[in-house]
């Protein structure tokens, strides 16, 4: 893939300390890169450097939405269309409608709620025809119930353009990212395919901010009460969700939510627990990280389990051992995948 934006040269120093450093970071054509990290990690500064709001870079190739979108005097419509060309304006009106804010276009912007402001700013930014879209915490002011719908519109509007998203929200990574860069203390600590980074954080500090997170891609087969059954490559998963059958979703659950059973001790058929998900597989890797052990088993696709050293010793697990994994459906959540 060809590079469309090189962030490697971008860094920002305050008081002798690098507060943002884009080392290793490049955005490729059509790629969705999410910069993830805790508050104060320097994510926003990196985005501002890329957009040319600070520093020397000419950001005219980037449609940039700041973390706190500001509404100028005048109506919602004036703010929606600010700086847009005629063709972009039509797109903005359509996006405003899809984001549920076409009814506030006549309202003075000062009277709009935080969520309405964010939706207007999203519509304006996404309507831009610039080749790169950069969004800083795009869902920060969006109600939990609406996040899936908004991220779907965002994904749709970005289409095949390259995009750079900053968030401290793991669900956004799960729903949106092709690649994720984990930023801590001004440094990019890990960068890679989102699923892989979520599954296998490269260091203790990365694991601390990201958690060991399993992400499985699949399609909803049916729903049952608060649960949906999702067909992922190689296995079926029950998880909390309300998507209709046929929806493309990503199922996410923490490695700490996975229970391991040795097959000799009974296996899934014998297990009389309340978990809805039981999978048989083979241990692929065992990684000791401090007091915890991360076991990755292949159950049709790799799933990570985090157990204590004590449990590990008791089970005497080895690579290539047969194991059964169980996960409570209530510990697994579905996120609607942003369309590419």
């Amino acid at each position: 893939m060809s590079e469309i934006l090189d962030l490697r040269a971008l860094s920002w120093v305050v008081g002798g300390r690098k507060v943002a450093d884009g080392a290793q970071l490049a955005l490729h054509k059509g790629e969705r890169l999410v910069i993830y990290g805790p508050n104060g990690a320097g994510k926003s500064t990196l985005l501002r450097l890329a957009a040319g709001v600070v520093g020397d870079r000419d950001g005219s190739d980037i449609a940039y939405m700041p973390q706190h979108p500001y509404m100028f005097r005048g109506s919602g419509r004036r703010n929606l269309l600010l700086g847009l060309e005629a063709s972009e304006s039509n797109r903005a009106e359509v996006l405003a409608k899809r984001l549920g804010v076409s009814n506030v276009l006549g309202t003075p912007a000062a009277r709009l709620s935080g969520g309405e402001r964010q939706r207007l700013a999203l519509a304006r930014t996404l309507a831009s025809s610039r080749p790169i879209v950069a969004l800083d915490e795009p869902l920060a002011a969006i109600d939990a119930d609406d996040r899936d719908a908004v991220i779907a519109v965002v994904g749709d509007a970005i289409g095949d353009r390259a995009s750079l998203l900053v968030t401290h929200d793991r669900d956004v990574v799960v729903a949106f990212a092709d690649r994720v860069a984990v930023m801590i203390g001004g440094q990019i600590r890990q960068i890679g395919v989102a699923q892989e980074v979520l599954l296998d954080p490269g260091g203790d500090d990365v694991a601390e901010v990201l958690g060991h997170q399993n992400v499985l891609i699949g399609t909803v087969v049916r729903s049952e009460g608060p649960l949906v059954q999702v067909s992922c490559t190689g296995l079926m998963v029950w998880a909390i969700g309300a998507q209709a059958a046929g929806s493309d979703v990503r199922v996410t659950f923490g490695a700490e939510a996975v229970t391991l059973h040795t097959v000799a001790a009974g296996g899934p058929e014998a297990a009389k627990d309340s978990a809805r998900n039981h999978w048989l597989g083979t241990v692929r890797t065992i990684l000791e990280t401090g007091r915890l052990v991360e076991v990755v088993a292949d159950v049709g696709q790799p799933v990570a389990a985090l157990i204590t050293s004590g449990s590990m010793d008791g089970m005497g697990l080895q690579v290539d051992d047969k194991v059964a994994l169980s996960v409570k459906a209530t510990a697994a959540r579905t996120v609607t995948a942003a369309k590419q």
Partner: protein
Amino acid sequence: MGFLGEVLRDAFSYIADFGPELRAILALSLVVAGLATVIGVVVGVPFGVWLGLARFRGRGLLLALVNTGMGIPPVLAGLLLLVLLWNDGVLGSWEGLFTPGAMVAAQALLAMPIAAGVTAGAVRNLSGDAQEQLAALNVGAIRRGWIAGREVWPGVVAGVAAAFGRVIAEVGAVLIVGGNIEGETRVLTTAIVQEARQSNLGAALGLGIVLLAVALMVNIALTWAQLRGEARV
């Protein structure tokens, strides 16, 4: 009736008469100060917006210069222009000395830094979020300045009011470059000086009351516009 009462009575009868002399003085004052304010605002406000938004080395020095200009003594501005307009001066060929044109120029010099300084202050006081959003918008520098100026327009109006208030009330600059020629370059402030010197205290006070009334009316109009703007946001 005491002395004060006598002066007041003279003052009000001078106003009530509203004779040709007073009418000419008032008209010239309004035209000169009005034109000077317009010129000062047309030049000063965009400059102030630019100064408020731009980031460059030497900006602090420029801001300090503008702030100094806001307080420049009118006689000094008048003197500067006098030197330029003198027969052998740089602009001597214009032959504008002791004409209303020279008075407008002198007062525009006073109005400009005030319009610029107050506007720059308002723009600099835009919140960090607003500045960030301005920088993020897909607009050129002129459009960006227009959006910023519109955002702080009550502040710009305050600059207009301050500039007009300063020029209508100043005497030093118009006296030096205008010469206070009766029927030609005499305005409210120079007329007050003239009448007071000749011990026509009633007429002087009458002119002073007219001056205050003009300043009051202009400020009422501008404040009303400002408050309406703030209410609407």
